[in-house]
């Protein structure tokens, strides 16, 4: 595995019965990159993410995440990655501090490490005054920052984000991308899915899945040139229509 690749995937395949959900895909994600992972509903995105996060064993092919083999080292992968799903995965009836402690504990941080991380996060996010408030009492923008911070509390080399901005207002959505940029600036690799095509433009590189295959992978600018399209939305529609997505 090359030093600067955090993900290496070669002919990765996953079938469910006689349905081939992911069909021999190959790609790499570089260290520190913001990698946009797009595709129509049912194209196979979720299956790929589940394989790369150690939740699903592939049928065939090769894949390494943070240097670990997805077939044999799924548990090691889970410790090395961060994951954030569609809904900010905080416990609404726990306080800010309790949530931080909970996620630190899950990721196996020592008690001392959790204490220093807690102070650091509260200061950096400006949450000192609300440290003992329930999550359910916090505004969306604060929750979002805290959810992101707990997903990377163990300093993972890569964080997977599955539609992190679905249904979020346009200002909060943009603030979330500030967090993504900041993390990438600090060297964390970001692997993100979205249905907002303008967000695809914020990525360093974008892949588009159609019917289990990766049909396009390039910088946003490269994709637009290759498809003669004004924006990624057009690229996506051209690709997905030709693939016959339902």
């Amino acid at each position, binding site marked *: 595995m090359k030093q600067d690749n955090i993900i290496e995937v070669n002919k990765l395949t996953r079938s469910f019965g006689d349905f081939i959900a992911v069909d021999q895909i190959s790609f790499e994600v570089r260290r520190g990159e913001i990698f946009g992972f797009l595709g129509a509903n049912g194209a196979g995105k979720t299956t790929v993410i589940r394989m790369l996060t150690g939740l699903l064993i592939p049928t065939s092919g090769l894949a390494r995440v943070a240097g670990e083999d997805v077939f044999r080292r799924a548990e090691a992968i889970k410790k090395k990655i961060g994951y954030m799903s569609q809904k900010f995965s905080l416990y609404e009836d726990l306080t800010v501090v309790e949530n931080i402690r909970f996620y630190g504990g899950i990721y196996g941080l020592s008690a001392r490490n959790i204490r220093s991380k807690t102070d650091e996060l509260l200061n950096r996010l400006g949450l000192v005054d609300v440290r003992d408030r329930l999550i359910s009492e916090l505004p969306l923008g604060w929750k979002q920052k805290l959810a992101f911070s707990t997903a990377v509390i163990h300093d993972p080399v890569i964080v997977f984000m599955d539609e992190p901005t679905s249904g*979020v207002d346009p200002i909060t959505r943009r603030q979330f991308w500030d967090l993504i*940029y900041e993390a990438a600036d600090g060297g964390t690799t970001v692997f993100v899915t979205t*249905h907002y*095509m303008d967000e695809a*433009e914020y990525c360093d590189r974008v892949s588009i899945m159609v019917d289990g295959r990766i049909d396009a992978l390039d910088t946003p600018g490269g994709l637009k040139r290759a498809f003669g399209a004004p924006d990624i939305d057009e690229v*996506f529609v051209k690709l997905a229509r030709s693939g016959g*997505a339902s």
Partner: protein
Amino acid sequence: MSVSVRNLKKTFGDIEALKGVSFEVKTGERFGFIGPDGAGKSTLFRILVSLLLPDSGEARVVGLDPVTGYIELRRRVGYMPGRFSLYQDLSVEENLTFFATIFNTTVAKNYHLIRDIYHQIEPFKKRRAGDLSGGMKQKLALSCALVHKPDILFLDEPTTGVDAVSRREFWDMLDKLKESGLTVLVSTPYMDEASRCDRIALMHRGEILEINTPEGISNNFGRDLWAVHASQRYRLLKILRAYSHAESVFAFGEQIHYTDRRHDFDSEELESWLASQGLEKVQVKKIRPSVEDALIALIGREAGGDQSTIMQPGPVYPGPKNGTGA
């Protein structure tokens, strides 16, 4: 008037889901409610189709009061809830027959209403609804909401979580329905879908911030909007935010949308200043504001006037609570 609503309010515990909304929808109109999660869209729809009681205010839907006239009202409205609510373990065909039957009609009798939509999923009519793809589920749900020949249709976020291609197809289907004169109220978190409505209401945290045609919303933006481009976008974003004359700075795809505080703003001056900061391929172009630009500006004004403060690190919203999931 197909719908008229005056000062409608609803609270859940201490969350004000609707803080007194008023609007009217004409017969045959396609009226969109645009806003993020927690704006109050679903609460509003549930009240109007008689599934939820308001705390106060008045509503008429096709001339009926949803509180006292709900029995008649339910026969006359079609409603597609935000969450897929068909029977997952019934087939496509069984679901449709079920909905026709509970409304005392048959699929055959109203087939002409759903033909354009239903024929796309008819090849799969023996398949269980739970096994359909997202796009097909959406088509089935719309067919089921139409099969009893409603006078008015409420579609609550029909395109949420659906990919860009299926979203376009869905709006194309609604275009065909419009030809039949059906009144449609539709909600969506996607700003780009606003242009497919006759009029839209921009909603945020239980309030309607503006009602207008999509063109009218753009025209009301009230100042010049500029699209700024440079090859290093994140640096450009940071530099513009720190710029003393900046009023608002927001990323939009590969560009930054920018407004300036000065009345005598000169775009060429900004271009050369950005170039002097070491940015390459700098371009500043005047553009027409989109609905998303308008909503950002309206939310910003609500949050205390100065939009730039919203983008500062640390605490974001001054408001005490956010009504999520209402």
